[in-house]
């Protein structure tokens, strides 16, 4: 559809209420060679000499990709946040020793260990990250030692 094309020729002309000319912007999708007042505005030459025509290019694909990327990112982060909150909620409502046991179990099962260091490293990284976020939270939100 022409509306969402990536090129346009835009001519800006001054208004002249005396001659009933209130319209002053003229836009068309044309090839660059045709981007001149004579083609776009279609008025007498004298009027055209005061107009300024500019050929403009945009890139809707970039916009589309980036907006979708941002929306997805926000979605994923939001979902992750929700899951974490739910997990926290569930975990905090279970008894502590139970959690402890689960964790130990998870770390000790030979299957898990056999599945390779990757998951372990991943998990320890996550743990570390969580601890770090906790630390940051403490500094910023609880102790107000920073960024206040």
């Amino acid at each position, binding site marked *: *559809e*022409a*509306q*969402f*094309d990536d090129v*346009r020729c835009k001519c*800006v*002309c*001054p*208004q*002249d*209420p*005396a001659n009933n000319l*209130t*319209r*002053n*912007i*003229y*836009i*068309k*999708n044309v090839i660059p060679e045709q981007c001149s007042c004579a083609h776009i505005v279609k008025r007498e030459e004298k009027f055209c000499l*005061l107009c300024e025509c500019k050929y*403009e*290019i*945009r*890139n*809707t694909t*970039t*916009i*589309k990709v*980036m*907006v*979708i*990327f*941002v929306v997805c*990112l*926000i979605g994923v*982060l*939001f979902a992750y*946040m929700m899951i*974490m*909150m739910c997990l926290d909620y569930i975990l905090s409502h279970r008894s502590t020793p139970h959690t402890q046991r689960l964790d130990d179990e998870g770390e000790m099962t030979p299957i898990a260990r056999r599945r390779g260091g990757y998951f372990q490293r991943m998990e320890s990284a996550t743990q*570390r*990250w969580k601890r*770090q*976020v906790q*630390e*940051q*939270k403490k*500094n*910023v*939100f609880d102790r*107000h*030692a*920073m*960024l*206040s």
Partner: protein
Amino acid sequence: QEEEDDDLIDITDDDNSKSEINFRDSTQGLVEPLEDIPIDTGKYDDFHTIDWLKDIQKDRQRHKRIHRDRDKSPLNKLKAAHDAWSGWLVVFLVGVGAGTCAGIIDIGASWMTDLKLGVCPQAFYLNREQCCWAENDTDQLKFNDKGCSKWHTWAELFNILGDNAGSYIINYLFYVLWGFGLATLAVSLVRAFAPYACGSGIPEIKTILSGFIIRGYLGKWTLLIKSITMMLAVSAGLSLGKEGPLVHVACCCGNIFSYLFPKYGKNEAKKREVLSAASAAGVSVAFGAPVGGVLFSLEEVSYYFPMKTLWRSFFCALVAAFVLRTINPFGTDHLVMFYVEYDTPWFFFELVPFLLLGVFGGLYGAFFIKMNLKWCKYRKTSKLGKFPVVEVITLALITAIISYPNPYTRMSSSQLIELLFNDCGPEDNFKLCNYKHNYTLMLHTGNVAASPAGPGVYESLWLLLLALIFKGVITVFTFGIKVPAGLFIPSMAVGACAGRLLGIGMEQAVYFNNDWGIFEDLCKPSTPCVNPGLYAMVGAAAALGGVTRMTVSLVVIMFELTGGLQYIVPLMVAVMTAKWVGDAFGREGIYDGHIYLNGYPYLDSKREFVHSTIASDVMRPRRADPPLSVITQEGMTVEELENLTTESSYNAYPMVVSKESQRLSGLVQRKDLTIALANARKFQEEVVSQSQVFFSNHVPRYSLPGQPSPLKLTKILDQSPFQVTDQTPMETVVEMFRKLGLRTCLVTHNGRLLGIITKKDVLRHWAMLKNQDPDSIMFH
């Protein structure tokens, strides 16, 4: 130890400790008794101060080693070339990274901002201006809240058409709801993933660049969350800008990319060179002003700024601006943000209103700083600080509810600034440009002559005044909430409103009093005379200057921003006046104010130390204190040293030749000592508690039978500590700390050790002299 560090290191480096060993001494691969033990030094703890000179020395040694090895093999030659090149490569990458981030943020934020007003159903990803891109017959779409036929407001989407109360209410409701939703999302994300992502970031970056360590502050999660929430917060309509946070984002890029190059990633002092360049890139992409960015980095942010950094900063800023321009999805040619097209001259008499704008800027800046710091202090100490999420949401709701009715607050602040900066051409037909033009004269001369204002202009005046007051007040409460929040744009908006108001006033005054002496000579009827857009520009610069107390960089940013090279004198007049007026009420800018509020250990390089104290007034131990914990060069046992390290909490211990003479011979870092002792216990079995420790080279060749074998720890002794005499004036000491980037300095008298001064002692002393609470400074 390891994990503390890892959160900053984003690539795995397994040869970490190995290279450290090599670095310290290439001959000490094997562990021998009496030989030194490999120690992994050079890492700093969180919230500690770095030692610039030692870091730079380390880098020179590393450089020398690479240089020396260069001829050994082609691989080494390649390595040397890579090393020489990596300084430019890293700033190039940082520039590309910062430019890309800024591009994504710009597109996302502009789209999300327009989401409050409506959508483009045929292509949801386009904002209003882009949606109406090829719409014929739409004029001044940018500054008009009516859309085009392709763009649907929320009311239209629900089939409530026309300009009636129903559609107004629906639109109002959606505006407020979106504001609420986006703000909630922003603050929750910050809270959940990266609390360090909130705020403007510039005070913290200043502190970090002055040599402080805040782990995780420039990490990848901060980058991600700050980028995302910045868009959300701006779109929520809160009175904040994305320019300050962009500097933080660029610095995150700088930190992350510097880990690709061990030269920068492993050396905190070198890393700060990259960060200086990154902050220049941040401003460069925020405003499209590369030179201004470099000057901002130089004037406002950076602490040590060698010439090499100047060149690299410029390169980095240019690359970033160029990448952003290349992404250029909106089809505008101009790199800069608020491009103005006019080129009209200004006259001498106009310096008076520019001066007035400067005074306004200074007063507003002083008011803003005072109020904002008070409010932040209140937030910090009262119960309000317990509800950061509620605070943000409430503020978003209030802002949205008050903003919508006034078209000048309904549009985003940067749109408002752009609108106010522009002059009114004959082709503009929105209210602010509602002048009674004489079209015949205009067509004849080709100039837009001065004309009397129409009713639209008078209406705009009121709305602008309201917008000015609202923005001026709400920003005080907004800056400091727990979402990313810059204040460049809000301050500029306030100043631009004031400037435009004064400009329209002047314009009409000149038009109606054209026969006055001064006006008659200068303002011919056929030529344009007073340009309200220029006043808005000058007002914006003045307000921003009053708030941040920047001068040169601000003027350069403004003239790059607007492309108006000839308005440098008006801008300068206003900015300098704003600074002087602001300084009369308090010498510190908003960033310095926040640094003191948070008690960061920042030794300001701009302020002069004007007191007449001497080094012995500042050093520890004080008169009443117990004597200094010192280590003697020889004669102390392992146990004694271990007790020393556990009992006292000093970071470093001076070493003397003997307790009696107290002649200074060096300095030992506590961290090095503990590690060295632990290693010795672990690897050298013959070392026992009673082993004598030797820091000098006078180690007995063979240990006497019956005596435990000695331990030699020469390597951890710093034989070149900085020392001053007790009579040295503190101003000299402060200069040394500032210019050389010292961490500790020893005080001697006639060659005898008297005490020790650390950077924090200096800060505490200075705070005390300024009658501040010295304990407010954050000392870890």
